[in-house]
């Protein structure tokens, strides 16, 4: 179910502005890969190219290849909608659909893709909510609005919504930055559990979090404001945090800048 991602020579643009330059990396299946780096270094932008969400923004385009199990996501015969069905995403701020109940929120992805059978939906909702460690908290009020949950519960609801469509890869864009420490812990435990089944890529500003949850870490940096971001170094999390190869990585991790 989980798949590997190979990125080769990727340049990412906003119109004429090059935001990320020349990134090549491999993301292994059933691992958690963390992207760290200062604000504006392009890690979120790069993350959004992995499921073709970048081109939703006007002027967004890329050069290079992103291959999912060997298939280039950007080749002409690939439908971006199908890519996003395979590579799911959780956003920085919890964004449940405000018009929908808890049940409908989790079922949304399946329903909007044409699944109508009640039993299938109910089974998927229960499985996803259990997968997101939210089932016990909401099983008695599935018909209540999703927006009525606490911030941490909403974020787990969004994770349940994302895994309900059974993606191969789950991208997380600073999923805990709007949450308190307890909810953050719940999400981190969750990431640890679901990495058995998914390839997970997480962007985070919290280096302790990267150290706690990830197997591999990629450090992004930019030379100066207005210059494109680059991948400086990528390796096993233990090595990046204890014995990085690059001086910039060490400076960033030890808090000397950024």
């Amino acid at each position: 179910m989980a798949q590997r991602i190979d990125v080769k020579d990727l340049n990412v643009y906003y119109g004429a502005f090059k935001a990320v330059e020349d990134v090549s990396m491999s993301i292994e299946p059933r691992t958690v890969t963390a992207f760290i780096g200062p604000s504006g270094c392009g890690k979120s932008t790069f993350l959004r190219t992995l499921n073709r969400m970048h081109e939703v923004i006007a002027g967004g385009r890329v050069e290079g290849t992103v291959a999912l199990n060997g298939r280039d996501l950007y080749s002409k015969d690939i439908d971006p909608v199908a890519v996003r069905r395979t590579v799911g995403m959780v956003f920085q701020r919890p964004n449940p659909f405000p018009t929908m109940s808890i049940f409908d929120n989790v079922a949304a992805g399946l329903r909007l893709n044409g699944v109508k059978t009640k039993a299938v939906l109910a089974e998927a909702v229960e499985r996803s909510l259990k997968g997101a460690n939210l089932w016990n908290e909401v099983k008695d009020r599935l018909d209540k609005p999703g927006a009525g949950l606490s911030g941490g519960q909403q974020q787990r609801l969004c994770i349940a919504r994302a895994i309900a469509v059974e993606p191969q890869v789950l991208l997380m864009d600073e999923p805990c930055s709007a949450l308190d420490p307890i909810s953050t812990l719940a999400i981190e435990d969750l990431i640890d559990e679901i990495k058995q089944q998914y390839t997970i890529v997480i962007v985070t500003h919290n280096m302790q979090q990267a150290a706690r949850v990830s197997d591999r870490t990629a450090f992004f940096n930019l030379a100066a404001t207005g210059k494109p971001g680059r991948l400086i170094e990528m390796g096993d999390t233990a090595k990046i945090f204890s014995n990085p190869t690059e001086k910039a990585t060490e400076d960033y991790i030890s808090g000397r800048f950024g």
Partner: protein
Amino acid sequence: MSTVTSSTEPAAAPPVGAGLSGLSRGRSVTNSVMTVVVYGAFLLALVPLAWILWTVLSRGYSLLLDQNWWLTSQRGITPRRVGGGAYHAILGTLVQAAVCALIAVPIAVFTAIYLVEYGRGKLARAVSFMVDILTGIPSIVAALFIYAVWVTTFGLQRVGFAVSLALVMLMIPVVVRSTEEMLKLVPNELREASYALGVPKWKTIARIVIPTALSGIITGVLLGLARVMGETAPLLILGPYSASINTSLVDGPMAALPTMIKDNFGQALQPATDRLWASALTLILLVLLLNGAGRVVARFSAVR
């Protein structure tokens, strides 16, 4: 409100800390003056409103209490005679407005969806500019345009449907603008959340964006409807008054409340004058009812 109380408080005691000082005399005087000016302007603006309401209510209410007002027409009733009702005119106003909405709302809502969700570049700017121009068209010009098309070019009769067409021209820009604002209020994060689930753009708009903005869109439609219901110019050009009930939009003259008011105007006879005020009050009530309905819909379908 707090400015009123603060102006009446005595100046504060001499300061303890450095840099602090009491309310200066000049500022408290300015405050009092401005308070009086602001409240005065508010009351002044309220005077004509209350005056109109009172005049129309006090002169028009008695006929509305009679059930004949709501159930019969003016057929065979001369200005000299008491009696009859406004059913024909109420029916005409409601039917014309409903047909207008039926045509205008889909066009306007789809235009707004285009402008907010798809429109980029020259075409979108041109459409938006056209909507602005349409907003500024005086209602009588819209009516004359429809007259030129409907009567002069196609040689058709002046009927209720032609009135509806003129109202469509006036309603479209109002609904486009209000729907546009509502769609812009839908957070982009919801669209992205939907895309990230592998939902195509059109389905995202139909199933996520529109439902989220629905209460606002409905409110805008009802407010637009309330506005065109009181339009008189299209009726003067395209909708001759008739004292009898006419349910057909395409055959024969169809009465409406504004033309009923005009028909009773200048008759200098008490029964006609009474009917004038009563039909004015009826029109105000209808518009008020629609506004109220808009608020109720907004409250109950509002996204929590």
